[in-house]
């Protein structure tokens, strides 16, 4: 009897020690590996070219960190497919690399975990309505590629209130989502103008809208794209206006991690290709007409001259692939936010520099 008790104890010990040993082993392999040690101390070895691209080619699809709950930018349609403005920019990458826009996996990320997921390599690129700020660019170890959507914080009021500018909001009750940059922007701007107001905090955007519709608050604030998308769902959309003023700058665009310049360049130029295509007037419909064009600018863009794609490490025809499969910037914009959608969002800043916006692609040469 004593013996079996000992055996029982011994077995318990063994399992526990085994567990500890295994955990210890996992740690040992990291620190004992001299190459890994070099990696940690020498930042130069981190910038090894083509790491991300090689991984993606090996894997067969691009992992895009996205938002799955932002109307117009990223959501699931009834067929269970991700759709939206941000998702389409993820598809441009898949199209450029694999000639197949569906070769992506969308990893829904919350606002809190998005940067860690990017840093740890969980996702290849983060396209999740992420505002470009100096702090994020530097301290978080991320690189921001060209902005795909210039947003700004706005305020919605009832049109019968007679309010048309920020100054007239004196003493108003303004609803805002708690814990967001919009909350601090609101405070900053109103302090700047010396306007007193009553801030009403809510946990999520649905609650803000509910309170606004029921008349509990006089105005509410979030990014203008959000305001517009919400306006369409109010009982009487015509009875509300969005004030002209911008409370903040919100440039949103794809983000990659530090340390892989080749991948940074690929994301940058694939994104720019959609803008360049709009400027050249190339769409997914008429791209056939541009094949074999005389114009050297078009020829270089389409990969018929020069080796622009190869310089990036992808196919020379990457621009053709992007335009045929996903479309140019205008097509992407119109499909998700344009006049045919419930948002009917004015292009505003997000128009070509030739049309009064600030979208401008450096030359493809």
């Amino acid at each position: 009897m004593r013996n079996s008790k000992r055996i029982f104890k011994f077995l318990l010990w063994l399992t526990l020690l085994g567990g500890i040993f295994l955990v210890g082993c996992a740690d040992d392999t990291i620190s004992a590996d001299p190459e890994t040690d070099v990696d940690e101390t020498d930042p130069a070895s981190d910038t090894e070219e083509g790491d991300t691209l090689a991984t993606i080619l090996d894997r067969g699809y691009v992992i895009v960190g996205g938002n799955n709950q932002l109307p117009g930018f990223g959501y699931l349609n009834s067929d269970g497919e991700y759709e939206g403005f941000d998702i389409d920019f993820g598809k441009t990458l898949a199209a450029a690399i694999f000639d197949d826009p569906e070769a992506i996996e969308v990893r829904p990320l919350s606002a809190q975990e998005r940067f860690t997921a990017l840093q740890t390599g969980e996702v290849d690129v983060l396209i999740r309505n992420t505002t470009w700020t100096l702090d994020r660019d530097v301290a978080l170890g991320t690189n921001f590629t060209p902005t795909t959507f210039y947003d700004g914080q706005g305020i919605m009021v009832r049109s019968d209130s007679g309010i048309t500018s920020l100054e007239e909001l004196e003493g108003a009750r303004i609803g805002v989502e708690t814990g967001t940059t919009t909350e601090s922007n609101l405070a900053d701007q109103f302090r700047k103008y010396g306007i007193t107001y009553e801030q009403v905090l809510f946990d999520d955007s649905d609650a803000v809208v509910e309170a606004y519709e029921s008349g509990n608050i006089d105005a509410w604030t979030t990014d203008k794209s959000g305001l517009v998308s919400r306006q369409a769902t109010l009982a009487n959309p015509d009875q509300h206006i969005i004030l002209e003023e911008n409370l903040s700058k919100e440039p949103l665009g794809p983000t990659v991690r530090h340390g892989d310049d080749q991948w940074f360049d690929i994301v940058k130029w694939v994104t720019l290709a959609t803008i360049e295509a709009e400027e050249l007037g190339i769409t997914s419909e008429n791209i056939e007409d541009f094949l074999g064009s005389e114009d050297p600018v078009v020829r270089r863009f389409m990969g018929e001259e020069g080796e622009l794609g190869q310089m990036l490490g992808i196919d020379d025809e990457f621009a053709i692939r992007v335009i045929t499969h996903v479309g140019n910037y205008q097509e992407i914009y119109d499909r998700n936010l344009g006049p045919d959608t419930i948002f009917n969002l004015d292009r505003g800043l997000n128009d070509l520099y030739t049309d009064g916006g600030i979208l401008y692609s450096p030359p493809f040469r």
Partner: protein
Amino acid sequence: MSVDLKLVEAKQMIAPPSPSFSIWDWMRKNLFNTWYNMLLTLLAGGLLISIGYTTLTWVLTEAQWAVIGDNYKLFMVGQYPITALWRIWSALAILTFMFGISAGTFKGTMLRLSYILSAIYLIHIVAPFTANTSKIWLTAQLVMLVFSYFIGAKIPYSKRINIVGWAISIPIVLLFIHGFGILPAIRTNVWNGLMLTLMLAAVAIILSFPIGILLALGRTSKLPVIKYFCVGYIELIRGIPLITIFFMAQVLLPLFLPTGLTIDNVMRVMLGATFFTAAYMAENVRGGLQSIPNGQYEAAKTIGLNPVQTTTFIILPQALRAIIPTIVGQSISMFKDTSLVAIVGLVDLLGIAQSVKSNPDFLGRHMEVYVFIAFVYWVIAYSMSYSSRRIEKSLGVGER
């Protein structure tokens, strides 16, 4: 027997005259017996009626339930490819079959639960939004349930068949859903909706049970290393909120893993949930162990059982029986806690709801979506607590 008879006689002698079950009588005695009770009744009644009225008007006239019907597949299995849906149906068929067998063998609670299951199948068969192929599958499931019930009721040794059957069916179900190289693999990022919620809960509850028992035994052990390791583990995990564990599993774990080794993010959350539940399960089991009087240990010793035998055959069965209500309570709360994974980017039932309400076609329909998933959570959680009550009754827990 004679004692029982006497008791019955005694009860009959002092039994009050059976009350006449008129609703009006009951109301007059209980609701309108004094002036303040009358006032309270009227106030509470008015409140209930007004709440009920507004709720009903909303449910029946204002709410636009199309958002549920149009996205029903999403709510249930999420992005799982339509061409591979047969795999989920087959997996469900296996579970239904085992359910029927168990219902046939054990009757009682399992039978009641299979009534609930058939009701759910029936509702979906007649529901207008169910696709025709799904209706065929559902009818097949229903037939399967009835068929397997009779098998379970007829064949001998069916208790053993039950245990073996369930043990075999779980890997087969996982094989159907995941593929494991035999069927084409289906990436876990499309495991969404109710399916993911149920799988997370099932994995966490089933796996945490043995780990919890080991931890509880370890904590009561006299060996200091084992004891303090278990105490440390339990107290550490219990001191951390579940959401923190999920965050650590999702965000920090990849940082610690050696390069090249990646664990799928669904698996990471499953592991996190399991280790979390195990700590609580351990404390529940320890409570059960402490409820066993010393006499049991001594009696086991006198008939010559060694400690392992004592624990397995004498102590644990009694301890576990005593803690069934807490285990089920733990399971229900784990089932509901899985909704936290929506915060770390997994698309469970709540995650799907948040994604569906962001579809421009259904903007502003968030109330309908949330009411629907609340109802789904309630049906499942209530079925669990109902079965636990029945099991307690049939085992006579609390009547020892």
